[in-house]
């Protein structure tokens, strides 16, 4: 393989750090776990891990490090071991405050022991055993390390690092420990860096006649991000795969040495020129404090009279840089972007290579190229990825870090667009008392997978994913009911959504990004905004309130939720029309208005209950009256508006669980 990396003595300790908790996989095999718990009363998983590695043919030094990774004091003169132990405790035990610990035998995404599979559907232990068997003997080189990262990602990303702790992936924990050790061992201080590319501005020119452009843009941006990070880490001989904690098309979380942050910024600034897009980065220390935030903007390219304009980005094309895409004249950057879509396929191996090669996707300012091919062909390989593995066998076969890149082209027949925005959820994780970094990286890695699975479940195949990363998802569908149901499912886990009718593709894409960003600030809590329902804003709090209100009312009145919803919806225009009875001071006028409202409610109640064959008692009527008028009228109207939207989309509200 053509990596330019140090074949350094550091590799065994970095490898051991990566594998130090491998024994925890037995948490998901109860019989094996029991056996090791008896054999190793203290830190059973360390002993179990060492035995598993022995079975796989790993050398003694790795097994030794793994076995004593949590008890370094038992071994004299073992500074490396104490590094693993110290890195292991970083982030997890920074504060004295402990979380409530409840053992829950499930994976991160809520599956039971029996249901848990690897990311691409394999049995955990089988994939681990097949993937970590080195036929020609294990060598302490980068190929081995990358294979271990790949197999660990496939098997342990969905698993909990600690059965008592939610939202912390075993894979992320292992990677964080190895990245920290990789920095410390060279005397470097590690920092967390979050990078996000904003393609909204570029996307606005994406038109229906070039449907691949936007997904191509995201792949181009993603590979560019990966390349600029890898190029930076390679400059000091670090192995990039150990330091990239989570990656999605427009978003990467990494842990890199402090001394490389300046170089990273320089690389990203060059990339922003290649993408002609803004890149923002946030640097956070290991205690979760934001150290630096920066936005890297490309230089504007002025419009020149007499020059041709690019068909895609509408900018003037510099002299000598005109290219053809089909019969359209485009600029060189857009040429590469429009070609990128062809790189998205199953089991594609994408190599990021230092230098400019004509046969690939070129990043002229950054000076790298993305090429489809085999790693052995290039000597200046920076990093590589296995795009969209068809199943776990591909990962076992290639030993290359897998990435599911599910962005698809526009479908002109799908009229509803949704953005699911994770901004507030990410902020919430950054404010967590413990495991901030673990949680942030876990959520960044797993959220896109969980969202895609949920979309598949609810929208079946009637959707097209236009953007999918840790910060947001944009999809198109034709199912209004499904769209709202999906948005409400997302709301339950703290994600916000905006639903709109499709307009021009590029502008709708951008409109969603802008609206979501604006509402994130204005609402201050997760929400669902349905623009085509008169702009109804359903915040997390109001949604719960509405669901609980109607469930409670159903219990008190004995009327089924569905019938109550019908009543509420028919009554809503009267309430809106009568307006603010709270403003009336005179008690006689006030009681008269209340009675008028009830008088108008009466025939609605009678007709719906007769239709639904429901007998209504006096107590039921009192309960209905109290529930309707215990709240200020404007709050009641808000609740009824939410229930109306739910009902008209065939969704029955569920109370708080």
């Amino acid at each position, binding site marked *: 393989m053509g990596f330019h990396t140090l074949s350094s003595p550091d590799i065994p300790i970095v490898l051991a750090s990566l594998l130090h908790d491998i024994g925890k996989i037995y948490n998901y095999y109860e019989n094996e776990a029991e056996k090791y718990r008896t054999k190793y009363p203290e830190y059973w998983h360390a002993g179990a891990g060492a035995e598993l590695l022995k079975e796989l043919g790993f050398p003694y030094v790795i097994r030794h490090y793994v076995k004593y990774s949590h008890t370094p004091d038992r071994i004299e003169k073992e500074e490396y071991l104490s590094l693993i132990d110290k890195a292991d405790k970083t982030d997890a035990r920074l504060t004295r405050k402990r979380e409530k610990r409840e053992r829950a035998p499930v994976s991160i995404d809520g599956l039971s022991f029996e249901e848990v599979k690897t990311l691409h559907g394999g049995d955990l232990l089988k994939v681990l055993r097949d993937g970590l068997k080195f036929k020609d003997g294990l060598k302490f080189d980068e190929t081995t390390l990358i294979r271990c990262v790949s197999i660990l990602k496939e098997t342990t990303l969905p698993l909990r690092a600690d059965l008592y702790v939610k939202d912390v992936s075993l894979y992320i924990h292992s990677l964080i420990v190895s990245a920290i050790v990789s920095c410390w061992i060279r005397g470097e201080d590690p920092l967390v860096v979050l990078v996000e590319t904003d393609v909204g501005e570029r996307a606005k020119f994406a038109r229906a006649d070039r449907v691949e452009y936007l997904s191509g843009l995201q792949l181009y941006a993603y590979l560019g991000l990966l390349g600029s990070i890898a190029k930076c880490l390679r400059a000091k001989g670090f192995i990039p795969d150990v330091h990239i904690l989570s990656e999605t098309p427009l978003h990467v979380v990494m842990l890199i040495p402090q001394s490389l942050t300046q170089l990273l910024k320089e690389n990203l600034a060059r990339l922003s020129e290649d993408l002609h897009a803004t890149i923002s980065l946030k640097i956070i220390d290991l205690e979760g404090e934001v150290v630096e935030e920066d936005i890297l903007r490309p230089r504007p390219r002025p419009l020149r009279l007499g020059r041709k304009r690019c068909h895609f980005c509408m900018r003037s094309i510099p002299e000598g840089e005109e290219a053809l895409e089909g019969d359209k004249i485009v600029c060189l950057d857009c040429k590469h972007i429009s070609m990128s879509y062809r790189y998205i396929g199953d089991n594609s191996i994408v190599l990021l290579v230092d230098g400019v090669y004509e046969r690939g996707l070129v990043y002229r300012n950054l000076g790298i190229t993305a090429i489809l091919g085999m790693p052995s062909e290039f000597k200046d390989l920076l990093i590589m990825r296995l795009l969209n593995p068809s199943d776990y066998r591909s990962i076992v076969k290639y030993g290359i870090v897998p990435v599911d890149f599910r962005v698809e082209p526009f479908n002109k027949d799908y009229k509803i667009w949704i953005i699911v925005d994770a901004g507030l959820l990410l902020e919430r994780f950054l404010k967590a008392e413990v495991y901030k970094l673990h949680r942030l990286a876990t959520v960044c890695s797993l959220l896109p997978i969980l969202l895609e699975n949920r979309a598949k479940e609810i929208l079946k195949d009637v959707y097209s994913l236009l953007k999918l990363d840790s910060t947001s998802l944009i999809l198109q569908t034709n199912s209004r009911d499904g769209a709202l149901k999906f948005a409400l499912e997302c709301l339950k886990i703290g994600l916000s959504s905006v639903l709109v009718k499709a307009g021009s593709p590029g502008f709708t894409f951008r409109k969603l990004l802008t609206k979501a960003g604006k509402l994130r600030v204005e609402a201050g809590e997760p929400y669902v905004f349905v623009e085509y329902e008169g702009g109804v804003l359903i915040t997390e709090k109001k949604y719960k309130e509405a669901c609980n209100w109607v469930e409670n009312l159903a219990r008190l009145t004995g009327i089924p939720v569905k019938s109550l919803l019908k009543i509420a919806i028919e009554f809503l225009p009267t309430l809106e029309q009568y307006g603010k009875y709270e403003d009336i001071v005179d008690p*006689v006028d006030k*009681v008269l208005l209340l*009675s008028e409202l009830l008088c108008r*409610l009466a025939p609605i109640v009678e007709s719906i209950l007769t239709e639904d064959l429901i007998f209504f008692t006096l107590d039921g009527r009192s309960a209905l009256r109290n529930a309707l008028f215990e709240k200020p009228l404007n709050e009641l109207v808000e609740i009824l508006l939410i229930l109306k939207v739910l009902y008209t989309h065939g969704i029955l509200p569920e109370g708080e669980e």
Partner: protein
Amino acid sequence: MTDAIEDFCIALKNKDFKKAAELVEECAKLLVEKEEAATPLRDLGELIKKSWEDEVDKVLLRSEILVKNVPPLSNTLAQLVQEYNKSEAEKLRKLMRALMNFFRYYSGKRD
């Protein structure tokens, strides 16, 4: 011990409209519980909408109210026709309308 209907009547006699407004809904509910017929009540409501200017109007109205025989409401209203001035009569009309509305809601009867 008095019930909500009697309390409502007392409040009206005392010209305590705030109290009467508080009691009117309970009063309607009690009338429903007592299975009071809707028609005489509705007639009472209609009668009280009429204006009474002179003594002849008053005596005619009182006689029409008393004949509806909804105790103790009929007696109370007949007495109030005699005692209330114009603005008080307006409040009474509103309260009776509220009573009818509440009765309509709680009885579930269309008329």
